[in-house]
């Protein structure tokens, strides 16, 4: 039996320079998906769904970026729950996880994978 691997499409989103360290911005992908792009202090780029699962509002990109016990997180600006930037896992409620997207920087441009 074989498993079909979903095809990954890399969408160029913005100039890497448009991301400020330890901050997030929102981006609109084709088809209307909203992602929250974060650049952490070490230069890494992470992409999560922009949807705050607790409030239903598209706001995660506007949360404060930092760490909890070394785990890079964003805190929802609505009610402060923290999400692991790498996995989308909510650190305050283990039943909750937000969708993540692969992200990379190519020639100074940030690209996000859509499936």
């Amino acid at each position: 039996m074989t498993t079909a691997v979903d095809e990954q499409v890399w969408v160029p989103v913005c100039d890497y320079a448009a991301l400020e360290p330890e901050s997030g911005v929102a981006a609109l992908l084709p088809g209307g998906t909203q992602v929250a792009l974060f650049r952490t202090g070490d230069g890494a780029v992470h992409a999560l769904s922009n949807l705050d699962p607790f409030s239903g509002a598209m706001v995660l990109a506007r949360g404060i970026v930092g760490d909890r016990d070394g785990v890079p997180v964003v805190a929802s600006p609505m009610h402060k729950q923290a999400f692991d930037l790498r996995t989308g896992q909510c650190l305050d409620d283990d039943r909750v996880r937000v969708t993540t997207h692969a992200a990379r920087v190519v020639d100074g441009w940030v690209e996000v994978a859509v499936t």
Partner: protein
Amino acid sequence: MTRTLVVVGHGMVGHRLVQALRDRDSSGVWRVVVLGEEPRAAYDRVALSSYADSWDATRLALDGGHNDDLVELRLGDPVTAIDRTARTVTTASGRRQSYDALVLATGSRPFVPPVPGHDLPGCFTYRTIEDLDAIRAAAGAAAGDGVVVGGGLLGLEAANLLRRLGLRTRVVELAPRLMPLQVDEGGGAVLRRLVERLDLSVHCGVSTRAVESAVDGLRVVLSDGTELAAGLVVFSAGVRPRDELARACGLAVGERGGVLVDLACRTSDERVYAVGEVAAVEGRCYGLVGPGYAMAEVVADRLLGGSATFPGADTATKLKLLGVDVASFGDAHAVTEGALEVVHNDPVSGCYKKLVVSDNPRDAGTLLGGVLVGDASSYATLRTLVGRTLPTDPGSLIAPAGATGATGSGVGVDALPADAQVCSCNAVTKSRIQEAIVVDGCADVPAIKACTRAGTACGSCVPMLRQLLSSCGVEQSTALCEHFPQSRAELFEIVRATGVRTFGELVARHGRGRGCDICKPVVASVLASLGTGHVLQGDQVSLQDTNDRFLANMQRNGTYSVVPRIPGGEITPDRLLVIAEVARDFGLYTKITGGQRIDLFGATVDQLPAIWRRLVDAGFESGHAYGKALRTVKSCVGSTWCRYGVQDSVGLAIELELRYRGLRSPHKVKAAVSGCARECAEARNKDFGIIATEEGWNLYVGGNGGFRPRHADLLVSDVDKETLVRLVDRFLMFYVRTADRLQRTSTWIEAMEGGLDHLRDVVVEDSLGIAADLEAAMAEHVANYADEWRGVLEDPEKLARFTSFVNAPGVPDPSISFRAERGQRVPVLLPVPGVPGAGEVAEVKR
């Protein structure tokens, strides 16, 4: 069969007796009739002086009313006679009440020396709420000088009241020093200097010969011929037990007065008991509440057939209020045979400490007593050690902090034996408190108070309760979060002193990790309070909560609301039109706020600059509704229009709002100004509230509405505008510098050691010598204020952040939609996807 207990006197001890009896008498053996002379139920007389904080008698209420069918309170009708044969008492109104058992809890009366003129109008005593009301009324009329006869514990409390009422106050004491019962000569000398620093003048070693009427009040003539002018005189020259009922019905009395009782608190008539200050246990009267409470417990036990006896009492005392530390405990005057005194005396810094120890060559000695003046921080621990062998040599226990590496408190709570009484007012031991923490799960001081009563009377053991919590492993950490071990106040000082201006540098040098949503906004706020430029400058952007980052308030659908400043709530029709047009053109839901301004809801991130361009062009500026900052200074219409107004409240509110606008603080700050005592602006719900008087302004601090509403307390009265502004400057800056994160002014004051009195000392009396610095910091804030929204509009780099999507700046967020309700747009909420079983989700609190 139910028997009747009659209690004469509903003071602190009578109240405790009834409570103790009702707690134990579950089968209802006793019906209790309490006959009280005062017009109100028992109140916290120990805290009487704090009545002047609010002039609100309900604040002195004692815990636990007697709401039960078996207790009847009859107040305002004193007992005038006891008939022991018929077993009845008669009251002034002629009512007769029979008893099976009788308890005398009539307390004491202030002793007024029988000098000529002692009963002239303008002469007062200091024992009841009515006494304080009368003094206050007279002080209002008499402005000028006040004289207190008696320089003991209560005399100094009375003097403090007169000082607070604005009188130039003199204290006359017969003995050669203040507080002669508690302190020795060396301590008295230091105490006198500390008291004189507070502008109280002190006349020791003289008696009062007469009080005479003068043209403009009274004149107090002293034994050395000195004549003191006095608008009013307060006698506080000791107390005498109110044993007159007992004498009249033939009960035995003590040699020096008081109803004579045995260790069971029983009088010479076995059906009659006496408790509290009126009782002379084996001939000795106690003028403190702790021994009285112990007697109440004894009698409650005896009435139910027990065999408890009076355990003796701790007569340690501590001067409350005044901001001068004085404490004395045990054999303070070293009268024990062979006692040795170990003294540390530093007249320059105003500190005197003495320990009295037994002369025992084999160990460090047994502690017999001591006197502490100027710094009584070790009082709570030391007094529990009385009668025990000292854990270390006495000299090091009173050495100044730092000298021996010791902290101010000398000996830690761990050194205390388990049965040491930590709270002597309520006789609570160290082991009982540990049990409350470990077994009953008390996690903070209020919980311990509720569970054990420790710390509820005079409060001097509260620091030890804190120490016990931490020694039991209950963390009372002041660390801001996992990234900073410091409290907010400590971080403030670090930033101020080191000049560090970026979060990165601060966390690298003084913290760890990368920061979080707790410490980042705190650091941003500290930087803003220190006036380091625009809040969206440099790395500060990434520190800000979303509200501060977009200078607007995020609402539940991710849109923002906009609040332009309307100082004092005063607005011209033309400006009102601008707001209306902006709201209409951008389709914003419009609502009037409680702070007398207008909130415009439903703006998306990308609309904010366009909205503000219109507002700024019309002369509006940021209202800081989004910030932990000064919000509004609300006002009533005041003397300009109102028939009752005595001052221009709108004018003052506008002036203050413009002065403090933009000031970032640990939490939001709200204020109000009312034009007269009718208080239409609700100023006493505010962090600082101002109420006009005929003479000037009264300043109240520490109020708030919200989850736990609290009325503000009076800080100063009848000050002119210039003084008022100066005091508000100091108050706000002191708050900004020293409060914890998200601590409103109310909890800040409550948590402060010394509370409102300490605050008053710092802000009004400048006891820390920082007033000039605080004022200068505020002056700098005022000079450097600039509108944050204008700052954004003028800077393309800042403006660029107000976009919906980094890759589609002009496209509005497609997830946001509205519907109509009562003619306005309200958000359509998206279904909440990710939370199994959760409805409304509360904010995560860490």
